[in-house]
């Protein structure tokens, strides 16, 4: 590097260091937000499919649950329900990291909020509107996601009857009614944004269409399985006995 360009770089360093003591964290924050978002997004897709196996039959859900709890590794074939606790605790940690870095994006001051709303009124724009809904759902998930994860850490019982008891008799359906649309909208459009943000795809319109289709599809299987749990819950007598396939 020449003397003059060294001086120039030094100047740039001085200007940059005014606001950022360690500038590498700007890149790390963006990467961590996207990486945790990807993990959470794909986790949600898998999660909703696994829990929707109740739509096939009680037996199907029973076997999916036992398989995911590591049934093939246990002598009884029932797996280790404690795995649910560990996975829930790990996902809570991922949610915390994701939320911590996503906070940078929130309009923290009232002027910023007004600027955003005014922009959306004067110049309506589809992707800005989608991001706005990600912002709203992201804010809701600060409160809804930890409640669900805490429930799964403290009460990890999963099964056709035990899950139905949680949904219907313990009134957790009220949480799921809010959590389902918030998480599906946030996650699917979040995956779309990560894809276009890092140049994973250049086919933006196709990616956006896929995200919209996924929102509708996941909402349908999510609502259908939630209603199935409510119906099963209504038919159960307390105290609930765990389902055993005949």
């Amino acid at each position: 590097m020449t003397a003059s360009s060294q001086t120039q770089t030094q100047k740039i360093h001085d200007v940059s260091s005014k606001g950022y003591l360690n500038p590498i964290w700007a890149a790390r924050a963006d990467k961590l937000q996207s990486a945790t978002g990807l993990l959470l997004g794909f986790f949600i897709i898998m999660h909703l499919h696994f829990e929707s196996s109740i739509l096939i039959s009680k037996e199907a859900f029973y076997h999916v649950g036992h398989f995911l709890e590591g049934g093939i590794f246990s002598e009884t074939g029932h797996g280790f329900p404690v795995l649910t606790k560990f996975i829930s605790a790990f996902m809570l940690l991922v949610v915390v990291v994701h939320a911590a870095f996503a906070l940078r994006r929130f309009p923290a001051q009232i002027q910023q909020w007004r600027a955003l709303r005014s922009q959306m009124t004067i110049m309506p724009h589809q992707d800005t509107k989608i991001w706005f809904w990600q912002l709203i759902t992201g804010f809701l998930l600060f409160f809804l996601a930890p409640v669900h994860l805490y429930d799964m850490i403290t009460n990890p019982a999963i099964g056709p009857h035990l899950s139905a008891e949680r949904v219907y008799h313990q009134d957790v359906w009220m949480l799921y009614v809010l959590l389902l649309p918030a998480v599906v909208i946030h996650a699917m459009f979040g995956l779309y944004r990560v894809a276009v943000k890092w140049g994973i795809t250049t086919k933006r319109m196709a990616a956006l269409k896929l995200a919209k289709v996924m929102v509708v599809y996941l909402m349908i299987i999510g609502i259908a399985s939630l209603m199935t749990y409510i119906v099963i819950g209504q038919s159960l007598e307390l105290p609930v006995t765990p389902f055993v396939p005949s």
Partner: protein
Amino acid sequence: MSSPRTISFEIFRYDPQDPNDKPKMVTYEITEAPGMTVFIALNLLREQQDPSLQFDFVCRAGICGSCAMVINGKPTLACRTLTANFPDGKIKLMPLPGFELIGDLSVNTGKFMRELAERLQLWLQPDANDIDIHRLETPMDPAEAAKLYELERCVECGVCVSACATKQMKDTFVGAVGMMKIARFEMDSRDTRSAEDFYHVIGNQDGVFGCMTLLGCQDACPKDLPHMQQIAYLRRKMAQTIVSC
């Protein structure tokens, strides 16, 4: 042949130099002509109805970038917008937000672009010790030249800045125009600045890591520049850069 229709323009009017003036919307009517653009209509309005109407133009051909404004909720160039595009004949004009207002539809994009160029050092920086005016310049690889020309098409109209909600929320954000120009010099083999040098200019929350990928820039750019791909390229490049603090 059907008779020409009358179209109405609802125009933002305000002179910040006049302490008694208040922002208001004023409606004008004009007879549409074949092939009429918003720019032509504005000139007719100024000639025939209101000589005090302020708006900018130079080239009338989408090259100078002066006549950018918000037309029915979309920031774009007045000279490239046909009045025929609006079937109801109602056109609402607002000045580009995010810039200093000179008056009515005229904003000071020049001041913004100059400050941005100085802040980001948007000029070619060749090796200062390797200058020999008698030597023939090394020919540039045609593929590289084509890439640079693609990005050089930016006319600095300011549309990407106004279309960006991130920029509207955060005044210090450099916007797509700044990143597009940085990408242009980063690709130029004659520029001696390293990836680390560029990182210290845009590798922060005001630069490429502050962009939320709302893509207003991509959707509104009147020159159809590949903002989405360029910002993604720059983001990947900067994320791979090892920076010494």
